[in-house]
């Protein structure tokens, strides 16, 4: 029996901002790959934290501090279950996916990458999974190779395997492209990389919010994502690290709470995961992330994925039927996440986004922080529509209407 599908209208009602009018039109928010909106339950969890429990966790013996510690630990356990991490200590709070990837760069990379080491990336990476490695490579004298994509927008797995034969030290790739929606077979890639002796880093910023993720099944060494792309507040993120890898990493940020002892002559580090969480923790963010996970789990991640596949399917049909549209990336829903990048004739994506905005339709335009991919596609920019739980087929219809207006203005 197929599970009941997601009720997008019911979901929509949980998101106060979606009642907003933009230029007198209903807000159709299709910029979810950039950041998602927040359900009332998440906003309330944040307010509730500040009006009931706020304190520094771990450090005080007073009641509020105990409560803050409890909600903080509980949030970490929720994340642990959500991504099926084996251990509490493998889940590290950061300020976002970018911060998570930088933690891996400074914490693991600076210590373990040496001159002449090979780092393998893919051409479909977000800048946050490119620039830290470029800087690391420059610092150490390591070499970077980018795996390209096929005409269909899929990873060139042949090339990937070729590079594995060169025994890379580090392999970092995105689980899901924020431009093409391509879903990479993280498990397979990690298994190849592991066999080649590489440490693996999965950028899951676009996958964890949209599909059931199991770090033990993927068998990666590190996995990074952001709260704000999955209904949670801004300023909170996660890096999952396999225990051995975290243990052999050095601290990234240093300061209060990540130490065991500090003397004028030096310091010793706290246990995992605290070694990587210097400074006052963002308990609010953790609580918000916990509430977001509760919300997503109540919907069911399978249904979330199913819903996005349905929308993608519908949107692809509509877009491919429309004149002048070029869609980038995989064309079959089951190969892609709810992200579609396209161009309309020779109209620049910024112009499209401006015209769509007039109709209340919020999309992204530009290079989507993935310039190497945009160059590879032979374009200078694209327009991107990306879906989440509160989007419906009507939203896609609004998108198509607004595109028709752009076509009229530019006489295409």
């Amino acid at each position: 029996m197929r599970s009941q599908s997601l009720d997008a209208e019911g979901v929509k009602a949980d998101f106060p901002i979606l009642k907003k009018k933009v230029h007198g039109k209903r807000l159709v928010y299709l910029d979810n790959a950039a950041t998602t909106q927040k359900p009332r339950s998440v906003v309330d969890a944040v307010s509730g934290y500040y009006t009931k429990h706020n304190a520094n966790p771990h450090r005080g013996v007073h009641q509020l501090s105990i409560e803050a510690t409890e909600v903080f630990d509980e949030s970490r356990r929720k994340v642990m279950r959500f991504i099926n991490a084996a251990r509490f200590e493998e889940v590290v709070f950061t300020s976002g996916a970018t911060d998570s990837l930088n933690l891996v760069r400074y914490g693991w990379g600076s210590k373990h990458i040496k001159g002449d080491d090979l780092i393998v990336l893919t051409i479909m990476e977000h800048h946050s999974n490119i620039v830290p490695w470029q800087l690391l490579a420059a610092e150490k004298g390591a070499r970077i190779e980018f795996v390209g994509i096929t005409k269909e927008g899929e990873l060139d797995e042949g090339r990937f395997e070729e590079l594995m034969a060169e025994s890379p030290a580090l392999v970092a790739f995105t689980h899901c492209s924020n431009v093409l929606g391509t879903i990479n077979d993280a498990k397979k890639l990690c298994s190849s990389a592991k066999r080649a002796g590489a440490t693996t880093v999965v950028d899951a910023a676009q996958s964890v919010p949209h599909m059931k993720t199991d770090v033990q099944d993927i068998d990666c060494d590190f996995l990074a994502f952001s709260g704000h792309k999955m209904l949670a507040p801004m300023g909170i993120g996660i890096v999952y690290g396999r225990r051995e890898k975290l243990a052999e990493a050095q601290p990234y940020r240093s300061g209060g709470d990540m130490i065991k002892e500090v003397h004028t002559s030096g310091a010793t580090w706290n246990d995992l995961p605290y070694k990587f969480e210097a400074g006052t923790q963002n308990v609010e963010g953790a609580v918000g992330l916990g509430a977001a996970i509760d919300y997503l789990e109540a919907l069911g991640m399978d249904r979330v994925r199913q819903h996005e596949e349905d929308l993608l399917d519908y949107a692809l049909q509509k877009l491919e039927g429309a004149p002048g549209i070029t869609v980038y990336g995989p064309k079959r829903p089951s190969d892609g996440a709810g992200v579609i990048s396209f161009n309309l004739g020779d109209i620049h994506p910024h112009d499209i986004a401006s015209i769509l905005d007039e109709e209340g339709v919020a999309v992204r335009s530009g290079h989507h922080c993935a310039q190497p991919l945009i160059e590879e596609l032979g374009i200078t920019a694209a327009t991107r529509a990306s879906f989440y739980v509160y989007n419906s087929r009507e939203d896609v219809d609004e998108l198509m209407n607004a595109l028709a207006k752009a076509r009229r203005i530019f006489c295409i």
Partner: protein
Amino acid sequence: MSSSDIYRELILDYYRNPRNFGKLDPHDIESRDSNPLCGDEVEIQVKVSPDNKIEDIRFHGKGCAISQASASMLTELAKGKPLEWVKELSKEDILKMLGTSDLGPARIKCALLSMKVLKTGVYGYLGASLEDSDR
């Protein structure tokens, strides 16, 4: 005014058929910049006359209708003017040139990119550095 009103005949015409598009050789000033958030690019080359006027000017680049039309219109406006004139250019001048009173913060950067490029080039040529207020 709504941002899509900007897409009037005039601008689309400059976008489709840009005046002063291309390169200029030899030139005395060459300046280039991009808008990191949207990727618009504009490069401007200027030939300066002995009395410090803009003798000739060309631009090339890629980007949205607003950034490219704005660059093209600016070159037309600038041709023949003294370099000092460039220093005085303001956001308001560019909006007036585009025939609009407001563009909103997101698109204004597209409209002003070519002014920034031209100013950077001219200040560099005149040996002064770009002042903050123009950044």
